[in-house]
């Protein structure tokens, strides 16, 4: 048989059509920029990023870093970015937990459970996230009690304004405990790197001990250096809770919305991954005498993880982008902060460049991390 001929080498010379396309695009862009400059001049605004150091003058609904309205625009953007990252991180964990639980239930032994999981996925796949957010917000505002009659479970309080919970107050000596935790993690990391190629069956007790280090060392440090541990408990004073930690109702509702909405999609991903494992795999594991738990841990899970990582990556990127709907209920995330700045300063072009750049960086960072993880897993597979 004659082997197929290799494909012809791709031409590398520049075509006239390339030049025409790029030229046309450049022309349109130049025209747009020219118009923008002319329009801004007519409105009496000069282009540039100098406005970032000016005073913002507006307050935010919540902030993770110290912020006052007298701070600069750059600082308020940072506040928004921090809020977005925090929200995304919380939603990510929430959606993953919900998704994995419902994914497992949807292939589980109970037909009632399967029906519930199926209905859950179907309902939330067919509703817009904004509507889910607005419905939950209405239910929370109307359904939850006023601050004075907050639902309280011990030191945790839930009202239609916020969730209040106790927090450990940080102090100077706390750094000893933090440092001890870092050292513990570092030792574990080094130990694992050294023993990577060693036989895994040996040293199970050592592994357990090493895994406990990041918890044990800080506790030891607290005892040795007599770090004072003070807990701030929220208390009802006047019209609101004082002290303790506080999450606004907006934050709670958005986190719940995205957790439920993406949870449904992740459940579908997990379900797909579990169904993709041929039955022969678990049967073979059983024939080899592995216990059910061993079969899940050593045979099923490693294969499922490899299958679900690409679609999960997709889900997580979508989740990060979808945190921007927080603007609809007034949580000060990156999108809502940049909307306010646009309305105040008439700098739409500059602000949108910054905002899109930041979102793009977040999403690309997440994707890169995931791809690296996926590559590592698949490399191990082929070895």
């Amino acid at each position, binding site marked *: 048989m004659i082997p197929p001929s290799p494909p012809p080498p791709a031409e590398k010379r520049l075509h006239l059509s390339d030049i025409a396309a790029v030229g046309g695009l450049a022309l349109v862009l130049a025209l747009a920029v020219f118009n923008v400059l002319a329009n801004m001049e007519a409105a009496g605004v000069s282009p540039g990023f100098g406005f970032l150091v000016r005073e913002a003058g507006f307050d935010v609904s919540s902030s993770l870093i110290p912020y006052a309205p007298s701070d600069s625009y750059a600082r308020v953007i940072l506040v928004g970015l921090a809020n977005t990252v925090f929200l995304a991180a919380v939603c990510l964990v929430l959606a993953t937990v919900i998704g994995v639980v419902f994914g497992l239930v949807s292939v589980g032994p109970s037909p009632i459970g399967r029906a519930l999981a199926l209905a859950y996925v179907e309902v939330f*796949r067919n509703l817009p996230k904004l509507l889910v957010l607005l419905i939950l917000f209405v239910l929370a505002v109307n359904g939850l009690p006023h601050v004075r009659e907050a639902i309280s479970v011990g030191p945790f309080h839930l009202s239609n304004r916020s969730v209040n919970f106790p927090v450990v107050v940080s102090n100077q000596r706390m750094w000893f405990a933090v440092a001890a935790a870092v050292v513990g993690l570092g030792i574990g990391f080094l130990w694992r790197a050294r023993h990577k190629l060693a036989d895994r069956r040996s040293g199970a007790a050592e592994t357990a001990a090493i895994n406990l280090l990041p918890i044990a060392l800080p506790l030891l440090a607290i005892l040795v250096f007599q770090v004072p541990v003070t807990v701030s408990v929220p208390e009802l004073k006047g019209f609101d809770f004082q002290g303790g930690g506080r999450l606004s109702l907006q934050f709670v509702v958005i986190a719940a919305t995205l957790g439920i909405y993406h949870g449904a999609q992740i459940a579908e991903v997990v379900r797909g991954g579990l169904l993709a494992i041929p039955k022969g795999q678990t049967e073979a594991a059983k024939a080899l005498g592995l216990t059910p738990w061993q079969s899940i841990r050593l045979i099923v899970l490693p294969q499922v993880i490899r299958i679900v990582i690409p679609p999960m990556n997709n889900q997580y990127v979508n989740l990060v982008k979808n945190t921007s709907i927080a603007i*609809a209920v007034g949580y000060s995330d990156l999108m809502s902060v940049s909307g306010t700045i646009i309305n105040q300063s008439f700098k*739409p072009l500059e602000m949108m460049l910054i*905002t899109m750049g930041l979102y793009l960086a977040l999403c690309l960072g997440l994707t890169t991390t995931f791809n690296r993880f996926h590559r590592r897993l698949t490399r191990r597979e082929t070895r």
Partner: protein
Amino acid sequence: MNFTFAAHLRTGLREGFSSPLAAALSLLTGGLIVAIAWVSIRWLLLEAVWPWQEADACRETTGLCWPFLTEKVRLILFGTYPFDLQARPAAVSVMLCLLAVLTCRQMVGKPPRLNAGQLAAIWVLVIGLSFVLMGGGVFGLQAVDPVRWNGLPILLILSIVAVALAFPLGVLLTLARVQTSHPILALLASSYVEITRGVPMLTVLFVGIFVLPLTLPAGVSISPVMATLVALVFFHASYFAEDIRGGLLSLPAGQGEAANSLGMTYWQATRLVVLPQAIRRSLPSLVNSLIGAYKDTSLVVVVGIHDLTATARMSFGDPEWRDNALEAYVLVGLWFFLSCAYLSGIGRQLHRNSAS
């Protein structure tokens, strides 16, 4: 019928309580289902105020308030469109729904069978007619400002027209992206697609509303509805492009090469051989993106377009009906659920067709 139901129930129960884990799971999820059902039945039936009752009765209960819905349903559907002229947006909504259903039936190969040319002609006709009916100002129709195009028709116009325009743009982006002999073109297309897919839709809408008007020469203005439409087209196009690229890459290279060896030009080969097959292969994922695009159209409320979600908010805006937000949102949710479920069904059918 009764017998089979009982048999199903028996096997289901036996399976559901076959092991301690299964039994615990069944009890837990069963309890959850009962709780959800009880809350829903109480709200929908037991504590509901029926349409023939007085509206004042709504203040005494927490159930569904039908008098609110009967009074506000036209506001939710058409918003502030002039009340006497609301037959026009109603006709537009029906037409656009029929257009969507017709197109979906074509995709899964159900009658009436039309060829691509006929379908395209119908699309152009219906969309043109929609704008004429909504805007008026010709044929003796009273002119209506786009600001007052609210509710269901604007949702349908924005989603359907945006999809109709984004699709060809997506095809062009895909074709540009897979060019091996035009590296600059491919680079431009792929960076456009990747950047658009890496930012939230809201940022693109903001660009449409705030930046797009700035790029127009002085004296030329664009209405917010049009600006939003442009933004949606450019946003959806990159998602469609990614889906079509998937179909294109799964197509054996021999198809295009065979077309070339038959003496077809690039455009002939693409139009007659490559694209039809690539698009057919990407239809299942295209329908998924379509559903996403349709659902996400509701985000336009953030930039001040009054679609269904916004008119729902209007309906409980006056203090008298302040407590009836849930009714309005549930009505909107029901519409989205039914329309998306129809589209999902089409998607599943396409999936089955492509698998067989």
